[in-house]
Each structure stands twice: as C-alpha cells, then as structure tokens.
C-alpha cells in the first residue's frame, strides 16, 4: 500500500514535471517574441525563465503540442503531454453539467444525452493510440526548431497512447435507432472552429466510443473535455473533441476540416486528392537513441515504439547497418491492438558510423515501408525529396533512419 502510494506520488510528480514542459511552451514563445520586440537580450533578474522551451507551436488559428517521445517509458503517454492539434485559437471552456450530446438526422428517435446519462450506460476502457494524419510529415524533418524539442518529438510526436474510457457509440446509435440508408455520420465539436468530421457507419458500429476518461481521470480540456470521439486505429481527425452533435446521414459530408487540412494531392492519383485515409498502417520509430542525442561506445539499449491501426504489432526488427541486416527486437508486454507497443534491442556500438532503423510488421502481415517503397506507391520520384521544398505528404509511415557519426552525434537521415 505504502509503496503503491509512493509510486503514485512519483508518477504524479513526473507527470506534473512533463506537464510543465508542455504548458510552459507557449509562454516562452510569447515571452521571447516580446523581448525581441524590445530589443532586450539580458534576462530580467527576478523573472524565472524556463529552460529552452520545447514541444509547442501556437498560431492564431492553430495550437500544437508534441509528445516528448524521447522522455517517456512504457506505452502510456501521461495525459498532460498527450499531443494536441487544436484547429482554433483557444481551448473551449465547457460546463459539463450543461453539456449535451445529441444524435439526430436519419434516426427513429432523436436523443440528447447529458454527461450523467453517458456515465449510466455500459462503459469500456481500452488502450489505444491516437495519431495526427500529418505526423512524421516530410515538411517537418530538418526544421530544427529548438522550441519543438528533439527531432523525434516534433517529427513523430503527434502520436500518443492512453487508456480511454467511455460508452460505445453503437450503444447510443441503438438507442436512437438507425433508419434504412443511414451509412455515414458527421460529428461536430463545441470548439470555436466547430471541428467536424465524417465517419462511415461500419466503423461507427464496430469499435468507436464516446470517451469521457483518459488514464483514469476525466478528459483534459485540451483533449476534448468533457467528451470526444475515440476512433481506434484511424487518423486523428476522426476523434472529434468537445463532441456535441452527431448527425446520421447517407453520404460523406466533406466538411471544411476534411477538405482543406486533411488532404494532399498525389501523383499516383493523377494529382487528385483523397478525402480520407482512414486507418493507420504498420509504423515504428526508435525513440532512444535518436537525433541530437549523444552516443557513447559500448552497450546501448535501443528502444522505441511500434503500432498499427490494423491490430496488434507482430514483430519489430532493428537494423544497425542502414537496413542491410535486420534482427528482431524484444516486444515488451502488453502488446495490444491499435496501441503503442514498446520494443527494446541490445546493441554494442563500436564507435564507427552507423545508421539505425526499426521496421514494424503487424498481425495482418503489413510491413512498414521504406521511404523508397512509399514514394514508389505514391508516384513521387525519390529525388524530389531532396529539393528545397519537399513534396507534401500526409499519412506517413516510412521507416525512420537515425545516423550516428563517429563523434557520437546523431542526426535525422530520412532525407539525407
């Protein structure tokens, strides 16, 4: 009991420390720009200055926090450092006692649910990753913004894993009763940007739930308090936060968010754009050691995360010679479907130049592609990645190479 309590205290303390890292970021950005305007370089003596900020980008219409993948262990992302993509200028302040979830449109019985209603219904708790559709995008490699943390954090840190708790959407839809021909639904959040997203009914009735809990506590404000959709294994935008309306319809609604932010034209589609990519594929990344860390000769524990939107991770292989030879890494339990899986790999670094990579295979047999393989599928010539302005790409799951130099420095070798 005592030891449990002290473990919990330690967890809370660490969580709070990590939270400080994320929460302070915007302040530092603002503080620095204010100082720059005044032309000041010296620190004000009585003002506590945080260490160089990392993990956040704020603009007038967008807030982003990146999960410090290099700093946490296991598979559960502490809620305060779960990544955030907020498509509006602020987080909404919602009174949970007044908040209602409505289900209407092509249903027999349009219904409104209070938070109390939702918590009276059957509850499920499941561990799943959520990942932004733009995570790992080519545009972010090499941007070297110290405010955004180490490269592994800002290249791949828009993916996090939590234990989510809520009520299955199928239960709510059964209460409302679907009309014949109800094949899609479109959800709306109560944030300023009214974030909206379409979802095919097949998925809605499968494993989607309306989440009100995250890692044992109520959802945090930046995660959609009081409720959000949780669409396991699918791209982030499906997981509508601040959920307030679900309209059952018979076609995809192609809302502003879907058509503008979440699309990119593709050569293999004749320059056309996909509205939706749906499910994430097999993916992994070595989180330590990774770019901007320093290596020492001798034993190295290579660790990282692997995941797939299709199910469980079956295998992770690691190469320490640029992909010529691969050996299987140890998967740490638990290995759960549509969740981050922690892998570890023992290695002895001899001080010579090396490129380390990880490759995930999921239980459906899907193998994480190299950049060359992915480029081939998308019809993007490999050399285009070396142009000053790289091709745009989303839904990126290419193998991430980290290059270790003889002096022990590590760099991002994805486009090197």
């Amino acid at each position, binding site marked *: 009991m005592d030891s449990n309590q002290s473990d919990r205290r330690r967890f809370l303390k660490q969580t709070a420390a990590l939270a400080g890292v994320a929460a302070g970021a915007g302040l530092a950005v603002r503080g620095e720009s204010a100082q720059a305007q005044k032309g000041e370089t010296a620190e004000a003596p009585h003002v506590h200055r945080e260490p160089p900020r990392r993990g956040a980008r704020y603009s007038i219409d967008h807030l982003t926090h990146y999960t410090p993948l290099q700093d946490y262990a296991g598979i559960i992302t502490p809620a305060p450092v779960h990544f955030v993509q907020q498509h509006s200028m602020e987080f909404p302040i919602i009174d949970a006692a007044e908040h209602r979830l409505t289900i209407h449109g092509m249903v027999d019985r349009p219904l409104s649910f209070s938070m109390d209603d939702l918590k009276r219904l059957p509850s499920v708790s499941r561990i799943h990753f959520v990942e932004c559709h733009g995570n790992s995008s080519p545009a972010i490699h090499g941007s070297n913004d110290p405010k955004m943390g180490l490269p592994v954090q800002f290249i791949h840190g828009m993916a996090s894993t939590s234990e989510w708790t809520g009520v299955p959407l*199928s239960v709510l839809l059964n209460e409302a009763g679907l009309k014949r021909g109800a094949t899609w639904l479109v959800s709306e959040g109560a944030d300023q940007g009214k974030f909206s997203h379409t979802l095919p009914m097949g998925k809605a009735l499968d494993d989607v739930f309306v989440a009100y809990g995250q890692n044992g506590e109520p959802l945090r404000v930046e995660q959609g308090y009081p409720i959000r959709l949780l669409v396991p294994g699918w791209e982030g935008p499906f997981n509508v936060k601040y959920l307030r309306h679900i309209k059952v319809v018979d076609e995809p609604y192609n809302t502003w968010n879907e058509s503008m932010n979440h699309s990119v034209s593709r050569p293999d589609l004749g320059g056309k754009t996909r509205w939706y990519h749906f499910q994430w594929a097999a993916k992994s990344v070595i989180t330590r050691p990774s770019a901007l860390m320093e290596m020492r000769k001798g034993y190295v524990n290579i660790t990282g995360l692997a995941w797939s939107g299709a199910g469980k991770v079956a295998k992770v292989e690691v190469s320490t010679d640029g992909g010529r030879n691969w050996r299987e890494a140890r998967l740490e339990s638990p290995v759960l479907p549509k969740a981050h899986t922690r892998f570890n790999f023992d290695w002895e670094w001899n001080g010579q130049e090396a490129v380390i990579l990880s490759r995930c295979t999921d239980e459906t047999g899907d193998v994480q592609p190299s950049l060359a393989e992915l480029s081939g599928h998308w019809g993007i010539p490999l050399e285009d990645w070396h142009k000053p302005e790289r091709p745009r790409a989303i839904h990126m799951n290419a193998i991430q190479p980290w290059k270790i130099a003889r002096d022990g420095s590590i760099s991002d070798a994805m486009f090197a």
Partner: protein
Amino acid sequence: MQCSLKLLVPVLILAAPVALAQSPRKFPDVGTPLSQAEIQNFDRMIGPEGKELPAGRGTAKEGAVIFAQRCEVCHGKNGENGITHHLVAGSPGHPYSGPFYGVEKDGPSYFPYPTIAWDYINRAMPAPNPGSLKPNEVYALVAFLYYRNGIINENDVMDQNTLPKVEMPNKNGFVPAKPVYPPAKMPSWY
C-alpha cells in the same frame, strides 16, 4: 475489453446498419427525446448538395462591406495577405484551378463543393464570435469570396438555390468519397 463490447453488440458488428432499424431501446430511461423544433435550433451542418441551406440572399458588393468589418482584421484586405488563411487564388474573372500546393489550398478555390465555405463561415466564423452571422451575411460573404476568386460574377446573387449550382474550379480535384468508402482492402500506403 474488446470482448465485452462485442458481447454487448454482436449484431451491430456483423450485420449491415439495416439490422438496426426498428431495434428496440435497451436503456429507455437514459437520454431525452429531441423535438423537431429543438433539432432545427441547433442543426446547422450543411451537406455537399446544400439541402439544409436556409433562406436568404447576398451579393459580392454586400459581402465586401461585411468582410471589411468582420473578417479583414485576420484575413487581410479582400482576403489577401492577412495573418491567417489567405482566401484568394485567381482573381475576378480568372478562376484558379491548380496546382494546389501551398496557400492556394487555404481559400475556397480549393473546395470541390460550393457549400463548404458557406457551412464553415456559418458555423465557425468570425473566430472571436462564431455563429453570429445571419444567413444573408453568410450568403453575401460567400458571394464576395467567390467573386474575388473569379468563381462568380460581381452581380451574381447567392441564395439557397444558386449557391449549390456554382461551378467550382477544383470540383474534379478529389477522388470521390463514395459510394464504397473505405474499400474492403486498404493497402498501407492508401
């Protein structure tokens, strides 16, 4: 955990949505029925065909005045060079049809359906006070933006009948999202 959900709703997972029709409620004392009047009060989501568009009308000239008052502070004069989303690609009389790579994606020229801009402005704009625009104002703003993007003429009237018929320059720029979506087999690079 996976199991408990499947036991709870076995039919829902295996069968088509049709199976749900007329299925009885399991928790009839949970939730509150909504009246049509209540639904009309909050249901503002507009689909691609614009079936839900409300009555109202507006022109580019009316929209120019509203834009200067409500939108210019963020989006810049005439929707250009503001501090957020650049809203113009092309120019009056000269629509822009691609390629869409950078800021061209930010404005309505990119959207394949004429209703998307109306729906978003109506629900989410202006950012500090979303939902405060009247239908006439939204029609006028859309008319103004479409005129500045070369999609319609300056004197065209936008209303619930004319707006859905506007020919968008990038209407063929997307892989159709229906009828079978997602496909049965989705390759990882989909």
